[in-house]
């Protein structure tokens, strides 16, 4: 059973379009992270959301944590070719200093933005 389900699995859009990708679970989390991974690179942390209903903005990216802290969404406004990549959500256990804090990743959404 997959802890974090991401949808869609693949998304191909034109530059300038808007898009939303989702990360869903039946479990409740104290926090959730979004990463972006480009080919040949490791995941890069974009944001951490911790409060139910929280909305965080990072330039054209808007992240929302569900009220029940079971799901999250990532909305990109006016997508650019540089947004192309694999978007991953992840959750951790622990979180205390020096604690376990291993990440559990979602299945990922592969985004391709074309001219």
């Amino acid at each position: 059973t997959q802890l974090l389900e991401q949808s869609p699995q693949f998304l191909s859009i034109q530059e300038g379009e808007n898009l939303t990708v989702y990360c869903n679970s039946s479990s409740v989390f104290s926090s959730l992270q979004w990463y972006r991974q480009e080919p040949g690179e490791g995941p890069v942390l974009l944001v951490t959301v911790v409060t139910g209903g929280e909305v965080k903005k990072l330039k054209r990216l808007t992240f929302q944590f569900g009220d029940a802290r079971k799901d999250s969404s990532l909305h990109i406004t006016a997508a650019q070719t540089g947004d192309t990549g694999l978007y991953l959500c992840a959750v951790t256990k622990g979180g205390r200093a020096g604690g376990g804090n291993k990440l559990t990743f979602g299945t990922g959404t592969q985004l391709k933005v074309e001219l």
Partner: protein
Amino acid sequence: EAGVTQFPSHSVIEKGQTVTLRCDPISGHDNLYWYRRVMGKEIKFLLHFVKESKQDESGMPNNRFLAERTGGTYSTLKVQPAELEDSGVYFCASSLWDRPSEAFFGQGTRLTVV
């Protein structure tokens, strides 16, 4: 400041051979993690070091995998003997002791066992 570096970036070995992957974390990062993505699957946790001590090795697949972090600096992950199902991309990540959720990942080592 250098990020997390992994070596080699690619490795192709035959079934039954031994391979050692290396990870150099960001200087000063006590937490070091190994993760793996096999084809078509999500990235999965392998193990976690705090300095030179193994904090959590619950994700290690079997005893063919051995991880070390001598002196609490760089880490190695040895696979011996390698099997076909070990193929995948192995990622290393590191973080400060008091900011464990802010992990920085290396570029990964793509291991292909043929």
